[in-house]
């Protein structure tokens, strides 16, 4: 198992820094998600790790050894593209065996290993097919098999699920996770979908505008975002500027009981807002709108005399709402904007 470290990694397109001084360490065997909106530099970073793009500055280290100047074929960091990128003139089996062939593995051995790998991605019967005859999900699995058969030091996945439809996506996610656990390969995946990152990664590195904004386990980014932008990326909608004195926080909602101290932006996840209990610290509220979203209903509520708005998600909201409770443990103070 291989560890990866990026030091001051920088990529430029013209004057624009697509990736600006990225520092990141990935532990051996870890699954890390590089998460961010399109254009944030995450795919550029993945290409630099794979050796397909030369960084303008900075270093890529694998197990402590500098590989920044190594060509891609010497890194054993295999990139799996979003679209599968199967070689159209080769059969499925030849595709899977391609990397072994490049390593000089004899024909019979690479055939056996390719077939065994195809069985593990449950494509046993398709070895002789042409890529053009495969479905999107099958092509993606062939691409995964083609990478894993090499037992690479790093597995780099570019948006592994986003080209698949919902049903296939769950199946593919479980398959990727099972294969990763089996092989223990250090995996870095790039995705713009926070749900995908949360479900698949041990740790998430959130990138915005070419910079790392927060790195940590999914729970930390979800419950304890570093700033409002990170919170928004994970679906945060409640932000109240104000000032706390250690027992209560003064903002548009009025005084909110909580331990926050100093100026900042108070936030709570919409699903953490409670509508039922009339416990201590309940605030009078008036409903101004509701929208059914499937698993939950989203409610817009006006709280306090200054017209502060609270957005709450509830699986089964009561007919009439007269108060809300913001549980102290769920409240989180962000730095002032």
């Amino acid at each position, binding site marked *: 198992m291989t560890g990866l470290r990026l030091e001051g990694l920088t990529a430029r397109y013209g004057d624009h820094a697509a990736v600006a001084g990225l520092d990141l360490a990935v532990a051996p065997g870890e699954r890390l998600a590089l998460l961010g909106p399109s254009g944030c530099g995450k795919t550029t970073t993945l*290409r630099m790790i*794979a*050796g*397909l793009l030369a960084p303008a500055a900075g270093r890529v280290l694998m197990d402590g050894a500098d590989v920044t100047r190594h*060509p*891609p*074929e010497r890194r*054993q*960091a*295999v*990139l799996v*593209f979003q*679209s599968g*990128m199967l*070689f*159209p*003139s*080769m*059969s499925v089996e030849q595709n899977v065996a*391609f*990397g072994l062939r*490049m*390593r000089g593995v004899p024909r019979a051995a690479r055939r056996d290993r390719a077939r065994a790998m195809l069985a593990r991605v449950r494509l046993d019967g398709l070895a002789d097919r*042409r890529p*053009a005859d495969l479905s999107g999900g099958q092509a993606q699995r062939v691409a995964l098999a*083609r*990478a894993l058969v*090499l037992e690479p030091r790093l597995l*780099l996945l570019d948006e592994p699920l986003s080209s698949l439809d919902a049903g296939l996506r769950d199946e593919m996610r479980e398959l990727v996770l099972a294969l990763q656990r089996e092989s223990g390969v250090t995996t870095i995946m790039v995705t713009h979908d926070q749900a995908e990152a949360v479900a698949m990664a041990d740790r998430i590195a959130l990138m915005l505008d070419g910079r790392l904004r927060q790195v940590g386990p999914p729970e930390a980014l979800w419950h304890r975002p570093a700033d409002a932008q990170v919170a928004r990326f994970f679906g945060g909608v409640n932000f109240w500027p104000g000032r706390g004195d250690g027992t209560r926080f003064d903002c548009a909602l009025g005084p909110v009981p909580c331990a926050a101290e100093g100026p900042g932006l108070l936030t709570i996840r919409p699903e953490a807002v409670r509508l039922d209990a009339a416990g201590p610290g309940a605030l009078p509220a008036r409903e101004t709108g509701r929208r059914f979203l499937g698993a939950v209903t989203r409610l817009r509520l006006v709280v306090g005399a200054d017209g502060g708005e609270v957005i709450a998600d509830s699986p089964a909201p009561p007919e009439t709402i007269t108060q809300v409770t913001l549980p102290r443990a769920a409240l989180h103070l962000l730095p002032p904007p």
Partner: protein
Amino acid sequence: MRGAAALALGLLLVAPLVPLAVWSVARGWFFPDLLPARLTWEAWSAALSPRSGVPQALALSAGIAAASALLAVLVGLPAARALGMRRFRGSGAVRLALLAPVIVPGIAIVLGLHGLFLRLGLANTVPGVILVHLIPTLPYAVLAMAGTFAGLDPDLEAQARSLGARPAAVLRHVTLPAILPGIVAGGLFAFLVSWAQYALTLVIGGGKVVTLPLLLFSYATSGRNDLTGAIGILYLAPGALALVVSARLLTGRGAGLATMHATMRAKVRA
């Protein structure tokens, strides 16, 4: 409906050639006879005997066209790759400049080039003719190949590198199979364009390099209709052959060749 269209197209293409074929086997074919008085293979045996110069001219034409096509493909490959895979500042102008020889008459350029070729010792030589044929052949070769490069995703090559292939292996296993249809099409185009050259060959070859079109023209103007008919048909043969080959290889959106290659290999293994 489609059958009728094919028939009409066939008639349009083939009908004008019928008198040529009849001439090549005619003896004494005078107005107002619908068919010649006597049929004979004399013109064919004359045309195929070395004394007529036809076999030599045929071989020379084929050699020059093949060499010129090969050169056009080799020289044109990098340009085709750049034009097909990249959008760069001025790529439209480059494309237009490459097309210019198709628009500007070759004779206009070649009179100026003749002086240069004389000084370089290339005038009146076969290599000189091969070189000058690049003027009309290169645009066709480049544009035909640029089309297949446009369909080649650069990430396909990146993927091969990532899987452990060195650049030479990427070229051999990934890039070449993907662009082979374009190379074949570009090469065939270049071959046929070179095959059809008259003025360029005449000026640069200086009458010393006698290709089939030159010979054909001299027989046609000397009134030997029977020999002209036979040579004319020989002259058409590579075009017809190229049409059949390209139709078989290039239909199926470029996948035909790769599939054929693969099935052949599969058969060999079995």
